[in-house]
Every structure is written in structure tokens, then in C-alpha cells.
């Protein structure tokens, strides 16, 4: 489990650490903001970077290759953190651990990921960038350190790292 601010979660299953707050992300942002308010001074723009890769390929990597990749990615993360750009980072467990709930009056629980696709969502980042161009350049830094797959940049509409605000 990677976590931003360089801290590592000691709990194996805890998900994102709760006690780590990056100054840029300590307040909920985006709530109530519309696209028209973007670009105004003081309103930050968050982008998510969704990491897709073939799970079969990812798990075929040797431990050494994986470790080497993580070292390179951490270096990029450190750089982004130092620039105050980096928010939550998550590496997801394999899709075999996934459970899918189909919404409805009687939600249906299905074992496995929502979609059986060639590439799977294996992790994500939240980054703070002024423009899409900047987000693309930032994603490219990560992309250069990954062997396969794709990164999808998706602007974040609502981001609340600390639960509902009072």
C-alpha cells in the first residue's frame, strides 16, 4: 500500500491512512463548484489518474521487477509531493478480491469486478494541477515508469478526504 506524504500504512487492510493529511487536501474541495468557477483564484483543480493494466501481466511481473517499478514510481510521487501536487494514492488488490453490488431496491451481490475487461483498474492517484495540460504532463511522469497499461485522467467533481464537513 502506497500512501501519500511518504508515510506507509502499517495496517495491511486499512486502506488509506486516516491520520495523514496533506496540507493541500485537508479541506474538502470541489463541493458546489461548477466548471464555470474553475480558473478563479483560490479554487484548485483536482484530477484523478486511474491506472489500468492487464492484471495477468501485472501479476506475471517478478518481485524484483515490481519492486524496481515501485522505487521509480515513489521517486515521482516524492517529487509531486514536494511540489504539493500529490493527494491520495491507492494500489488496489487484485480483482479476484472484488465484490460488485448491482444497485436497485434489492441490491444484487456478485463476486468479482464489475466488468470483465482486458485491462483492470489497479490503482489511482488524486493530483492537484492548474490545468489539464499540467495534469497530462504529470501523468506522463508516472506513465514513463510503468511497463504497460494506460492512465486515464478524470477531473474530480467532489473530493472530500475527511468525511462530510459540518
Amino acid at each position, binding site marked *: *500500500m502506497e500512501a501519500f506524504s511518504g508515510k506507509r500504512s502499517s495496517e*495491511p*487492510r486499512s486502506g488509506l491512512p486516516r491520520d495523514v493529511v496533506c496540507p493541500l487536501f485537508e479541506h474538502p474541495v470541489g463541493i458546489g463548484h461548477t466548471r464555470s468557477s474553475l480558473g478563479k483564484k483560490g479554487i484548485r483543480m483536482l484530477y484523478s489518474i486511474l491506472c489500468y493494466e*492487464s492484471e*495477468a*501481466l501485472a*501479476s*506475471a*511481473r*517478478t518481485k524484483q*521487477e515490481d519492486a524496481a517499478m515501485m522505487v521509480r514510481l515513489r521517486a515521482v510521487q516524492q517529487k509531486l509531493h514536494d511540489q504539493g501536487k500529490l493527494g491520495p494514492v491507492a494500489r488496489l*488488490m*487484485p480483482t*479476484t*478480491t472484488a*465484490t460488485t453490488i448491482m444497485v436497485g431496491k434489492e441490491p444484487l451481490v*456478485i*463476486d*468479482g469486478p464489475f466488468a470483465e475487461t*482486458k485491462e483492470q483498474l489497479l490503482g489511482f492517484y488524486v493530483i492537484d494541477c492548474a490545468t489539464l495540460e499540467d495534469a497530462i504532463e504529470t501523468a506522463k511522469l508516472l506513465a514513463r515508469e510503468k*511497463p*504497460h497499461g494506460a492512465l486515464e485522467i478524470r477531473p474530480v467533481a467532489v473530493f472530500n478526504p475527511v468525511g462530510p464537513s459540518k
Partner: protein
Amino acid sequence: MAWIDAALTSARPQVFGALLRYFRVLDAAEDAFQEACLRALKTWPVKGPPRDPVAWLIFVGRNFALDEVRRRSKQTELPPDDDISAEPDDTQGELAERLDASHYRDDILRLLFICCHPDLPATQQIALALRIVSGLTVKEIARAFLVSESAMEQRITRAKGRVTAAEVRFDTPGAAERAARLAAVTTMIYLIFNEGYSASGGTAHVRVPLCEEAIRLARLLLRLFPSESEIVGLMALLLLQHARAPARLDAESSIVVLEDQDRGLWNREMIGEGLALVEKALRHRRPGPYQVQAAIAAVHAQAQRPEDTDWEEIDRLYEILETLQPSPVITLNRAVAVAKLRGPAAALVMIEPLAPKLGGYFYFFGLKGALLTQLGRTDEARTAFDRAIALANTAAEAAHIRLHLDRLIKHSEPTPDVHTPV
């Protein structure tokens, strides 16, 4: 070219399975797969990886084999090997993908079922699966099982011969037969893991590559059956056991028992995934031996220190396991929990009736010796340990027991050290 190797390895079961569907003969499918891999190694570094390596390999492999047939029948000139048209562009790739996506599950399952054909003894099933599905070389498999390369070659050839003679069925088996054959596949994967986890001979006590291969096969199977709780349980069990691998041997390759292991060395990522899977499996409320064993491993994994271990829970889980799958080995394991809860005397009473059945079992005498030591019955303990050394499968096992003997001889305070096989 590590990424090409990884891509070929991960694509192998599906591509091989599809080619076998076309050609129906293991050797023909193998040739076609080899050829497709050779072309990938030639083309991919130049052109970059195809968008869908699996579809690409199936397409190229199938074309190669069809060309072979044509070449033989017509004796006509064919375009040279590196002709571009022999490789799919994206449209052709997508076509191949559409054709094969619907067969994905059946293709891989058929491959696994062939390897676990009921006519094959377990040793041949394992060898065939490692060769065909995992793609290990004969040399690698021979080394893993400590037999000569020619002996392993023979074993695999014999297995292929038997499968061919038995005429592999290409229709989908009925529900009952499928369940039985699926059980054979899980057993095969479990046996591969066990061979790696606790080697049955040779110098190395733990053979990590076999464990990793078993985990890869389990993942493959779990992707086909995400709701089959015993398969989820098997996957969890393998991960939770393998997570301890870095702590199971010390720098001198001596065995470190569970209690003495540096838990900081346990692989937390694997434990996390294993625990998540145990939870998923138990939701179905269809308990089975793998799930219960995984639950036991989970209890150990969750204890921060040995003294935090919930032995009550472990005892209860072994009790369930005894009813699901009665076996003296399981009772032996349960005795470890009983020793923790009610003392060595109670555990000894429990294992003594097992003697006739476990008279040739290393762990039986290891545990008996340890319990007798704790009770201060030194002479009897020494006899049990001597017997254990005689039955040891690996040098590390023997050395571990000798350590106990040395302690006894020194008449030092007996160390309560119970050897847990699980």
C-alpha cells in the same frame, strides 16, 4: 525483454487453450504456440506490443498451423516467414478476439481438465500442468522434483500418451462430472504448492518457484470461478501460507517454527489479500476444507505476536475440519492447539491413538517429542526425536529435530517448542 516473457507467460493458458480447441492434439497446439511465441519475439521488439497479445498469438499460431497443413497437402510455395500478412493488424486482432472471448472459460478449463485427467496419477497431472499450462521447461520441472531431465521428459510424454489414448472430450462435461474434475484441479494446485512449501526431499526445504506457480494457477482458476467458495478458499490459503515464506528459514537455511518467526518478515500484501479472500469465501456459508484451512492460517496471520494467537478459534476450526475431512494429520494439528489450551498431557492423549496410522510421519514424532519434553519425560522424548530424524524429508527437518535433541542432552530447561506443520 522481460515484458515479452511476462506477456507470453500470462497469455499462455488462454492461447494454448484456444489452439487446442482448433487442433485437438496437444503436440499440434504446442507447436503452434511455440511458433507464435517465436514470431512475437521477432516482431514485438520492433513494432511494439500488440494491443491484445492474446488475440495476436492465437491468430498467428492458428495461421501457422493452417499453413503447415496446406504446405503439406499442396507442396506449394508460401510467402516467407516474415511476411506482414501473417500477422494480424488491429481489425483482424479484434476479429480473433471476438471469436475467442466467448470460449475463454471453456478453453482454459479444458486445458486444466486434460492435465488432471482421471487416468493420470497425481505425479503426471502435476508434471503435465506445469509443462502445458505454466509453460515451465522440462528441465525446470525436473529440477523442482529432483528427478533427471530424461525421467521427467518420459513422465510428461507418458502423460500426453495416456491423455491422447483416453480421447480427450471436447464437449463441456455435465455439472456432476465438472465438479469432480474441478476438485481434481484444486488438488493438483494444492499438491504443487505443498511440494514447494515443504519439499519432500533434497536439500532445499522450501522451493519458492513451485509455490509461486501454484499461486498463479489458483489465480487463473479463481478468475474462472469467482463465486466458488472453495476455490476462493484455496487461493486465500496459498497466499496466507506463502506470506510466511521469508520467515520460515533463517540465514543458515534452518527451519524457524511459527512461534519463533520474525513476523515483520511476513508479506503483508499477501496476507491482506488472503484475509480479504477468506472474508469473501465465508460470506457464502458453504464451508469446505480449503476455506477452513485458510481461516486457520488467517488466525495465525492476524496475531501480532505468538502469544496473541487465538488458540480457541484454531481448535474450533480444526474441529470443523475434522468433520469435513477426517484425517489423522488434521487431528495431529489440532493437538497443537489443544496443547496450548489444555497442556501437553491432554495433547499427548489425543495423538497417542494416531500412532498406528502416522507411524511413518515425521511431524507425528516431532510433536510427540516436543510434548514429552514439556512433560519432562526426557528418555521417551529422545526416542521420539530419533524416530523423527529417521523420517525427516529434508536436511533442514533433520537439523531442526537435532536441535531439540541437543537441548535435551544438555539437560537445560526444556523449551516448549511445538512444531506446527500447517
